[in-house]
Each structure stands twice: as C-alpha cells, then as structure tokens.
C-alpha cells in the first residue's frame, strides 16, 4: 500500500439532487465529502442506508456528476469525464449482468469495448473466471446461476479490465450469511494478491471492520471519521460513530474539570467519572457524553476495597449494583446501575478468575480512562 499517493481523491464534493414534487429543500445526498484513498488499499465506506455512501461511489464511477467539488483518479481530475472513459470498474449490488449474454460474453464485454483482440480477450476472460473460481459456467446464461455465482461473474467482469480502482457497491448484500463470510475472505485475499485498490460500500460494520484497511464512516451525506478499523472502534470521534460501530455505553453529564486531556464528568449530584477528551474541544460546564465499550468496563466484587486506605484499583472507581446478569458462555453480560440511576452494560470474559455475579450484587465499577471518551452531546 502506497500512502503517499492518493489513488482516488475527493475534495469538498457535494451532490444535490433536484427538487421533486412535495419537497421544499433540494436533497443533499453528499455534503462536502473529502477523502483520499491510497493505492492498493481496501477502503470501506460504511454507514446506514441513505447516508450517501452509494452516491459517493457513483460519483467516483461517473454515473453521477458532482454538484460541486472535485474528484481525482490517478491525479487526473474527473470533471466532465464520462463513466466509460474512467479507469475504474464497478461491481453492482444487484450484479447487473447482461441477461442476454452468456457468462463468457459478459466477462468479455469490457475487453471487446477496449478492442482487445478476440483470442486474447477470450483467454483473459477464462483467466478471470478461473480467478473467481467459476471456470465451468462459461456458456450459461446469468439467470441459470445462483446468487453467489452471479456475484462471481460480476467480479470477474470488472476485474478482467484490470482497473486502477475497483468499486464495490454492497456486493455481498444479497448473499446468505455463510456465503458472505466465504466471499469476504476471498475478496480480501484477491485484493491482496492483485494489489488493486478496492473501494467497498457496506452498511455492515462487521464486514467493514474485518475487511478494510481503512474505513470512512458516513451519515447524512457527511464523512464523520476516516481511520483504520482499530482507530474507528477504539477512538470514535463522534457519538454516531461510537453508536454505529459495535456497542457503546453513553453516559450523559456535565464536564466539570479538565486535566491533561482527561476530563471529569458529573453524571448526577454525587457521581463523577473520568474519561479522555476526544477530538472535540468541549469547554468546562458543557453537556457531554462519555462513551465506553461494555468490554472495557471492569467489575470487582470487593466493594470494601474502595476508599479503604486509598487502594488504587483503577483510575476511576464507582460503586454499582448488578441489575441483571446474562451468562453467554465465553463471556457474561451485566447491566449495572451506577450513581443515582445510570445503567451501563458490561461484558466480562469468563476467564474463571472471578466468580459469576448475580443481580443484586454490589460491585466496583472501573475503567481505564484511556478507553472512555468524552464526546459532544
């Protein structure tokens, strides 16, 4: 992966769709989106449906023209360049295989358009079909194939053109779970082997986390955060990102003190917690949210230790009451009420070191302040 050169670059891209009847404001599907996608990278655009991720992909592919802003592919501005002249290929969500052509004709189509000699085109198409492990379906029509096989044909049809960038629009969305897991692995391997830049649109956070080198989390037409799966998961920049990816506790309160990027947040009249400041710059007195993942919260069944001669169990120590307990095998899930009335969910691995808690137990709740983040409300 070459991080010095942006393979695809979006600068302040806006896409507005014209007013339709009954709408008072033009719909801004993509709002000031800027991003750099590096050469050889597996880049995911993640967000709920309607967040603008597919529109962004279509802008890169050239099916839509941006209302303003710039798109560069291989450092070349794409302004006014139609889809058929762009060095990118797309795998569509519904595959969009040509129903009147055989599998081989589908895969050869792009090469024919590029005026590749017939013999070479055919051998390259066969190669591509072998690559997606579908070498025996060449003379069949797309409708005779299963969803998974159609997906492979769509992939072969795009890859055979040896694109600079491969765009994938929720390509695994129509597959069942097992097949999807398999294809995730295969796509990842294929991408690593071919070294082609993949831009992958998905609404499945798990898919994005397992496959991508970097993820852009989008909502309401805007990019909220771009980072590695680790960064996105561990240090979400906004409440939306923290909420959308994985499970998170949100503790609302007021910021009362800041010291060395660690803030103290008052949840109620007698409870305060500590957490690290995020990229937002809240001021003292402001309403904020503390975000903490369930698995980052530690529970200790020895409440007497707290305050007993300053035993430092953790940087934050609170007393809580177990409201409910669920045993899930590898781990246990608890809902613990802290302070006056703040429930937080906690996930504890069943390592065998701690006796399982049951509801009604009093526990000490703690976390490393590095894992808790203060986000704007």
């Amino acid at each position, binding site marked *: 992966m070459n991080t010095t050169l942006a393979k695809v670059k979006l600068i302040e891209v806006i896409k507005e769709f014209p007013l339709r009847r009954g709408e008072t404001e033009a719909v801004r599907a993509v709002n000031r989106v800027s991003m750099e996608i590096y050469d050889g990278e597996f880049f995911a655009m993640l967000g709920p449906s309607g967040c603008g991720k597919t529109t962004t992909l279509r802008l890169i592919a050239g*099916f839509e023209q941006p209302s303003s802003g710039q798109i560069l592919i291989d450092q070349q501005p794409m302004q006014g360049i*139609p889809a*058929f*002249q762009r060095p990118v290929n797309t795998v*569509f969500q519904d595959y*969009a295989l040509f129903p009147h052509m055989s599998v081989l004709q589908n895969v050869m189509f792009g090469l024919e*358009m590029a005026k590749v000699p017939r013999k070479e085109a055919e051998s390259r198409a066969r190669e591509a079909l072998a690559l997606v492990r579908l070498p025996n379906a060449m003379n069949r029509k797309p409708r005779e194939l299963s969803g998974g096989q159609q997906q492979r044909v769509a992939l072969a049809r*795009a890859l055979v053109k040896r694109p600079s960038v491969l765009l994938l629009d929720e390509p695994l969305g129509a597959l069942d779970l097992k097949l999807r897991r398999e294809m995730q692995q295969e796509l990842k391997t294929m991408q690593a082997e071919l070294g082609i830049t993949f831009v992958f649109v998905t609404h499945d956070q798990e898919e994005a986390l397992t496959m991508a080198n970097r993820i852009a989390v989008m909502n309401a037409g805007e990019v909220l955060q771009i980072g590695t799966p680790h960064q996105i998961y561990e240090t979400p920049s906004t409440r939306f990102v923290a909420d959308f990816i994985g499970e998170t506790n949100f503790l609302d309160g007021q910021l009362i003190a800041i010291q060395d990027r660690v803030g103290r947040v008052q949840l109620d009249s007698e409870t305060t917690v500590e957490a690290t400041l995020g990229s937002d710059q809240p001021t003292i007195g402001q309403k904020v949210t503390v975000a903490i993942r369930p698995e980052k919260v530690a529970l200790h069944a020895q409440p007497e230790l707290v305050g007993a001669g300053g035993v430092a169990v953790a940087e934050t120590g609170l007393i809580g009451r177990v409201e409910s307990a669920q045993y899930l095998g590898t781990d246990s899930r608890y809902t613990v009420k802290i302070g006056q009335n703040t429930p937080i969910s906690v996930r504890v691995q069943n390592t065998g070191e701690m006796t399982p808690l049951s509801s009604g137990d009093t526990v000490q709740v703690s976390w490393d302040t590095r894992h808790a983040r203060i986000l704007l409300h």
Partner: protein
Amino acid sequence: MATLTQTPTFTPDSRSLQGSLLIRRIGKAILWITPVFSYLFLWAPILLLILFSFNAGRGTFAWRGFTTQWYSNIFSGTLGAEARFSTELMLNALSNSLIVGVTSTLIATVIGTMVAISMTRGKFPGKRILDGLLFLPVVIPEITQGVSLAIFFRVIFEFIESITGARILPGVGTIIIGHVVFNVAFVAIIVRARMSNMNPRLEEAAGDLGATPWQTFYRVTLPLIMPGVIAGALLAFTLSLDDFVVTFFNKGVGSDTLPIFVYGMLKTSVTPEVNALSTLMLIFSTVLVGFSLFLQNRKD
C-alpha cells in the same frame, strides 16, 4: 395440521350446509355461463362470416353446401357469373395496404422506440405531461383523428400551393402519415412497458465497462427491448392493415386499401368473395396480434 382437522370444533347444521352448497353450485354455473354467452355474442357474427365464406350458395344466406370456390375466385381473376369481383382491383388494394402497412410500421417503430427510450431514461421538464399525451392518439375517437388529419393536410397543401404553385393531392403518402400518427403511440406504449422493466444498472454497467453510449444502445439496450420493439411493430402493422376511418378521410383517387375496397364492394351487395377475403384478413391479423402478444409476454 393433521391433528387439527381430526378434531372439529363444531358440527354445522347439515340442512343449512346443503342449502349453501346449492347456492354455490348455481354461483359456479353462472360464472361459467356468463363468459360463454358473452363470447358467443362477440364472436357469432364473425363465426357466421367464416361459415358463409364456405357456403356454396351465392346471393342468399341459406346453407347450400361446402365450397372453397370463393377463395379461389379471389385469386383466379375470373369474375364469376356476375362480374362483381375484380381480382385486379383487389390486388391493387392489397398492394396499397402492404405499402402503407410496411412503410408506416417502419417509420412508427423507429419514432415510437425513440420516444419510449427518452420517456423512460430522459430527464426533462414537462416529461409527465408528454407522458400522459402519449396515450392521446389511443383514446381520441378515430373519426376525430381522421377528420383533423384531412383538414391538416388540406391546410398544408394549400399553403404549399400558394407558395410554389405545386398542387399536391392526397394519396398513399397521406395515408402513411396518418397511420404513422396513431401507430407511434402504440409502439411507444409497448416499448416503454418493456423498457421500464429493464434494470437501468445494465446500461450503467455497459458504460462502466467502457461502452460508449451508442455501443451501450446497440449491444445492451436494443437487444433487451427488442421483443417489445417487434411486438409494437407487429401491432402497428395489424392496426395499419385494419384501419378504415383514418384511411377513408385521407385517401386519394386510386389509393384504396383493402378495407376500403371491401367497403366499396359492400355498397353494392355482400358477395361471398367479400366473406372469403374478410376471413383471410381476420386470420392474418389474428396471427400477427397473437405473435405480438407472445413476444410481449416472453421473459428474457
């Protein structure tokens, strides 16, 4: 499920059950009788026509035995005992019908397909209104269409004459234009239906793979809407062959089509040859429309 049916929760009164069964039977009978009589009513005149085209008796509607003489009369050129049927005139009318049919169908198919494509894929102001207007030629009375076209041609021809001095008379050309007018709408509606079932991603996919808009059209769009185009063309051809009203108002001397010719013969009397000719036209039209419907309903 099996255990459920084994334990009925109530026992219905057997008399009321029989009563409702009787009502159901009558209902079923009515459901059967209604279409049978309706279709009989619809088809009886045509069946009669076909029957009498094989009737050996001439001039009377009483059955006098089976014959195919009238069919051979049509093509033999002999005028029969009473010289009322001219094969020469009929062939002339047939050739006019075919010229008008083929020409207007070709023109209407090309224009109608273009209209259908721009109505499905295009984005322009007033599209909704134009879309609604597309159905206009289908719903306006044919007599209105025929008369308005006749007036239109007269105005145009007089204008041309006033400028160039050249006198243009209605004929096959005006009939063709008249037929194109209504056929464009039919072709466009059928092709549009086919096209709106087509996934727009397919065209994007073609572009994505490097096809120019023109290549996309003839490699992807056209093959996929082809059944619709052919179905539309067949229907247009049938409508053109069958058309009487528009043709009648816009024909000139010597440009009679087959329906006009048949009408002309009926003015004197119903000859058995007319029966035979009408039967042939019916069979031809039915085959064309049937094929058109087959193509419209065919899946990819």
